[in-house]
């Protein structure tokens, strides 16, 4: 059954190899995300500084909520923002 479902739905938990935390695709070597989500993550971290300047003050959670809601945000960005919010993921400063 597990094999059958993983064939139908490849992003399911039944894939055992090192997977991206946001989409379950193969993660980059020694990384937590795949190439696309890693780039989205880096862009989010960079953008937060710009958002803080634009609003004067904005909490990281409020910033994430706004980018998840914005129709202009990329899909990968929304997925990462959602993942961080859901899992209290600690943002590393690159």
């Amino acid at each position, binding site marked *: *059954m597990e094999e*059958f*479902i993983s*064939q*139908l*739905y*490849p*992003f399911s938990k039944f894939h055992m190899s090192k997977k991206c935390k946001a989409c379950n*695709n*193969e993660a980059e070597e020694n990384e937590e995300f795949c*190439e*696309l989500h890693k*780039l*989205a993550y880096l*862009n*989010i971290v*960079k*953008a937060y500084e*710009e*958002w803080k*300047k*634009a*609003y*004067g003050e904005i909490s990281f959670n409020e910033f994430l909520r*706004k*980018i998840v809601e*914005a129709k*202009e*945000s*990329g*899909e*990968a*960005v929304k997925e990462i923002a959602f993942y961080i919010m859901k899992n209290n993921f600690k943002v590393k400063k690159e």
Partner: protein
Amino acid sequence: MKTTLIICEKPDAALHVAKALSENGEIKKLIKYDIPYFEVKNNSEKLIICSAIGHLYEVDVKGNEKRTEYPVWDFTWKPKHLVERGQKKQEKFIKAITELAKEADLFINACDYDIEGSLIGYMILKYACKGAHVKAKRMKFSTLTVKELREAYKNLMPTLDYPLINAGMCRHEIDWLYGINLSRALTESARKYSGKYSILSIGRVQGPTLKFIVEKEREIQTFVPKPYWVINSKIDINGEKFNVEYKLSKIEEKNIANKIVKECFKKEGEIINIQSKTYELPPPPPFDLTQLQLEAYRHFGFTPKQTLDIAEHLYLNALISYPRTSSQKLPSTIGYMEILNSLKENSQYKDAINELYNINELKPNEGEKTDPAHPAIYPTGIQPKEELSSREKKIYDLIVKRFIATFGDSCLKKSEKAIIKVNEHIFYLRGARILKPGWIKFYSPYLSLKESLLPPLSIGQKVFFDEVKAEEKYTQPPSRFNPTSLLKLMEEQSIGTKATRAEIIDILYKRGYIKDERITATPLSFKIIKLMLKYCSKIVSVEFTRELEEMMKKIEFGKEEREKVVLKAVNNLKPAIMELKNKEVEIGKELSEVIKQVKALDFTIKTPCPNCGSQLLIIKSKKTGKRFIGCSGLWIGKCRFSLPLPQKGKLSLLNKECPECGFQMIQVKIAGRKPMISCPKCFITNLNNKKLTITKAGN
């Protein structure tokens, strides 16, 4: 009596040539192997006019190697029916032409005058007519009008156009070498790993084109918008409201935006300056193929391929000149007056042309692009003999109006700007008026300029800021390509040719690398480009493709040798293919995984199950053979949610949500009918409500 065999590219063109060259108007239509051809008399000569249906010969592997083996470097030209399936008709054309060639003393290639036409005629003369290419002549024309065809027949080129033929052969051979080796490498790697067969292709032009799309997709998917504020304000002048613009179109900080609002709202400003500028809008150049494709997409939503097909049909009916041109020039030899006089017979264009005659000099506003073989696209002036389809009418009208507009005067426009100061803040009140419409009148409805008239204003005049608001906005992600903007980029980057670009975009859709009109790259295309960059980056390099294109272009002008260019391409391709071959297992594994993902996505609904939140899938029942939407929770006994689906037609999931309930919309296409777009959830809810109403009414 001497017999001349004239070879045309398509049957419709052959009929036009026969009509034009018959001295007494008599045309004998004959049939050989089910293929029609024509016989006419001209100056006591017998002319046999036959045609091909595009290419009858194609590059293929030398010998009879398996279709799965790679790399392959030895190639030869073979009849198309021996290379591709379903080409029985082509075989009949070759047989018929071979028979007809036996009785001919002279041979003429009258295929379209470009790389492909020259190559089609050359291959037929060389192989079907058993070496007749050495003594054959070439007919050069840009329209299928009687006048031009007779002129072309009178002034035949003494030999075939070998630079064009060599350029064509080179392009086909290189494309074949790239296509066959790279596509087999990808397809075979995936097949050997998974045991399943999926066609995967990548080519010399396909590669860099797909790379553009993937790069854009990556930018869009990882785009984080930035907030900014715009100041929306209205002023009151003598009881009338006018929108005014703040000096800065974007304010990057919220505090600053709020400060502007505070300092201007309900305040009185003063007009400190009034500026006006008159400028000319010159008429547009006549259409080359790309510009026609861009304009047809903008106004009618036609894809580049659709526009090309329609334009070719109009050309074969002698209504317009040859459409596969990159020229924006209209030489006077085409006879401007004659064409305009003929177009005047159509009441739709009569007034515009009469007005054009009042202009002193009849001179088109030519663009910069040139084409050694053909002028820009123009109407021949011949009236359509048969009723055109609605799509053909649209393209024809666009071409005629553009042709007329290029002869028009410039449009004269005046822009006005009042500068208003309020508390050290500057605002602009803008207006525009058309002083003389010029060519724009002729090009209506394809371009119309809006006027915004300002009231009488004076320096020092006071105005009241009635409304001042700071609106929060976000920066926009890069726009997606559509088929036409992608085509334009390919042209700007000099990859592909005007004749092949539209087809390459179509192939990317067919392979499942891209989808939707606003082009989205699929996970498969990400993987293909990733693999190419990892193992053979040159294949997707725009610079390398452009360099090859330039070398091939030089062959057209006799400045480069075909053999040298093919050799260079092979030398670049060989190491890439060997690398792919060595890494077959790794590549196969990566490709198989992503193919599985893509296939699964075709059956996975984005909206979660409304009952349990699990994934919804399109399932086909083994028992009844019927398809429906079912919940993946079913397999673990958790949920039995399901929705019915239409059983007939091709079903696809759209990237669109239902405005009523937010469920993912579906599309069903049945041949010959308009595609049906609907929400499966609302459909069943509405059906249930209807049943309920009927039951209640019955009770």
